[in-house]
């Protein structure tokens, strides 16, 4: 058996209430490492094409990686995978918190759910045992209330929990699960899949040690890595350890990195007061730092708003993406309202990027006269009107009034509103775009335009377009850890770490092959769903057609057709069909099903 893994996976059929345990397939683990790699391999092999994302046949997975739970700093990531109800494509999304580590210590590398339970249930995984528990009494509770109730009834404060709030229960297409109160695997609408299955929560508690191949060597490597990384995360800009990700908000707005006013504006000219929602302004509300278990960076924080309409005793410090979506995108410099909106999204289980961007869409429609104040439940949707922003967030969370129109994201809202409003819905294939402008990033060697448009999960920013980056993502190390490890230890040192943990010698070429397989199998999932390159296009406004006339991105347009063609050619994927070449698939190995489906007269799928 491979070291560094719990060695077992759970498969839960919610329609029948059956739980099946399977040993982890060693060859699969070697070929796909973990997280979205194993998630994609399992779902691709076991699920046919064209299933209803909210139906019983869609598989929903929670997957860990080999660097999770083995005392590797930053090895904490939970990846949630499944067919996305928001985009209809492959969907993956990841988050920190303690759930992945706990699931592994409970004895499981992953848990996959199919079917639909007749009544709400919770899966309880604890030290090698798993069972379904009734959850009727938890339905309609928010995520914090759910966690509190579960901790009480299980009599254990140390459990780690992933749960949904009422947004997921009501299958809002921008709903997400929440891990340990404040961590959101936000993208792809996979909270709606949990809700459709009546799966209220998954709870894990484990005490078992995960065996590693060479504990002494691992300790030495991690000690050296931490020495190198600690200066990087503590003092080097952007001072992650002090600020978390909020430290760069103003710089992102002023530089043109952060989209402003529903992507119609750029830079300081349009949003002069970005410093009110950035770095020192944010941590002025922080009452204590917070971290994922065992993390030396502690990029999270708990904030308090003492008084006023948004007074709250305890809430999560907003991340950069949340500050961008509820701040710059809406010209809203009222930080307390952003803290409140973030809190609502955590409680109800909603993706802050999608909610903020959908409100930006609504505000632009209002400005253009496509929505009246009466239609918006009397709310004055002027840019920057924080009272209306908060009210709309609450309406979306509860699926009430005008919130019903917006609760499934900007694309669906535009379809409901009509009147040409689709021109102001800034999404790719249904997913609202993240808070990094590809017109800023792409020319600086950060290929976000290509990532948004070509990744199997469209519109994701924490993905890599390179094979080695995909392998890093599959280990379970968080983005900050990956970045710091690459910068201060060395991007080619991952193999040494994996050798000490798993006992498998991964050369740089083999790691790239792992990333290549992950890219191909996720792509094959989308091909099986019938998607082709023209299905994935960013709005012209996002790609700079026409370009801004003023500001830091003046004159910048992206030729996405050329960029995507060049990327596909470098990947050995056909730019016309999106198909990875047969030669590539054969060379990578471990992709026999994909070869059969794409080139060998497929009998599977639809």
């Amino acid at each position, binding site marked *: 058996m491979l070291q560094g893994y719990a060695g077992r996976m759970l498969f839960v059929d919610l329609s029948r209430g059956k739980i099946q345990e399977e040993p982890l397939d060693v060859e699969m683990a070697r070929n796909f490492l973990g997280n979205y790699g194993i998630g994609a391999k399992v779902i691709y092999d076991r699920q046919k094409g064209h299933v209803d994302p909210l139906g019983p046949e869609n598989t929903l997975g929670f997957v860990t990686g080999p660097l999770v739970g083995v005392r590797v700093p930053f090895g904490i990531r939970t990846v949630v995978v499944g067919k996305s109800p928001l985009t209809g494509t492959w969907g993956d999304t990841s988050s920190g918190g303690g759930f992945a580590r706990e699931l592994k210590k409970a004895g499981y590398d992953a848990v996959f759910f199919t079917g639909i339970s007749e009544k709400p249930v919770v899966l309880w995984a604890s030290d090698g045992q798993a069972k379904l528990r009734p959850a009727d009494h938890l339905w309609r509770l928010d995520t914090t209330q759910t966690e509190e109730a579960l901790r009480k009834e299980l009599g254990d404060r140390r459990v780690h929990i992933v749960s949904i709030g009422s947004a997921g229960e009501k299958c809002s297409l921008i709903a997400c699960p929440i891990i340990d109160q404040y961590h959101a695997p936000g993208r792809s609408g996979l909270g709606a899949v949990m809700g459709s299955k009546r799966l209220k929560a998954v709870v894990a508690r484990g005490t078992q040690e995960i065996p590693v191949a060479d504990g002494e060597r691992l300790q030495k490597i991690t000690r050296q890595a931490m020495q190198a990384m600690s200066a990087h995360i503590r003092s*080097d800009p952007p001072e992650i350890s002090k600020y978390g990700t909020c430290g760069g908000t103003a*710089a*992102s707005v002023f*530089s043109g*990195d952060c989209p402003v006013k529903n992507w119609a504006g750029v830079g300081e000219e349009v949003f002069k007061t970005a410093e009110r929602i950035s770095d020192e302004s944010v941590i002025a509300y922080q009452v204590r730092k917070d971290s994922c278990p065992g993390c030396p960076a502690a990029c999270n924080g708990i904030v308090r708003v003492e008084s006023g309409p948004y007074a709250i005793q305890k809430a999560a410090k907003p991340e950069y993406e949340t500050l961008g979506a509820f701040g710059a995108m809406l010209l809203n410099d009222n930080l307390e309202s952003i803290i409140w909106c973030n809190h609502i999204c955590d409680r109800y289980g909603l993706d802050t990027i999608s909610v903020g961007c959908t409100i930006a869409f609504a505000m632009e429609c209002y400005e253009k006269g496509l929505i009246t104040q009466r239609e918006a439940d009397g709310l004055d949707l002027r840019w920057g009107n924080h009272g209306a922003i908060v009210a709309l967030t609450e309406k979306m969370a509860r699926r009430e009034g005008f919130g019903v129109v917006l609760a499934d994201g900007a694309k669906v809202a535009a379809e409901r509103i009509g009147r040409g409003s689709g021109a102001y819905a800034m999404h790719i294939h249904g997913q609202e775009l993240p808070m990094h402008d590809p017109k800023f990033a792409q020319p600086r060697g950060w290929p976000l335009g290509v990532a948004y448009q070509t990744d199997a999960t469209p519109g994701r920013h924490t993905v890599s377009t390179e094979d080695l980056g995909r392998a890093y993502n599959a280990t379970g190390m968080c983005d900050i850890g990956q970045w710091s490890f690459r910068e201060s230890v060395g991007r080619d040192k991952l193999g040494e770490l994996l050798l000490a943990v798993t006992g498998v010698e991964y050369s740089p070429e083999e790691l790239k092959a792992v990333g290549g397989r992950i890219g191909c199998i996720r792509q094959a999932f989308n091909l099986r769903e019938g998607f082709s390159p023209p299905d994935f296009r960013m709005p012209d406004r996002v790609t700079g057609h026409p370009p801004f006339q003023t500001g830091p991105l003046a004159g910048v347009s992206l030729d996405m057709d050329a960029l995507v063609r060049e990327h596909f050619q470098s990947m050995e994927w056909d730019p016309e069909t999106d198909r990875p070449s047969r030669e590539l698939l054969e060379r990578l190995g471990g992709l026999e099903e994909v070869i059969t489906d794409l080139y060998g007269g497929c009998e599977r799928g639809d």
Partner: protein
Amino acid sequence: MSLGVQVKLNALLRKYALEGKAEFPLQITEGCTIEDLIAQLGIPPSQVGFATVNLKYTPRSRTLEKGDQVILFPPLTGG
């Protein structure tokens, strides 16, 4: 010979501001590059992510001219 330029320090670089002002005039010597200006202000080079001159992104090796407006940005984060 010295030249006058206008400097603006953005976001987390404000702590290096002269006399507490994030935006200020600065005298530099002829032939001064952005890199030299960063050193003159006592900012560790790793603290600067990128720079604009007259609102256009530019490499640090660029030589500055009289009246240029220089904006320095810290490295950015994701989220």
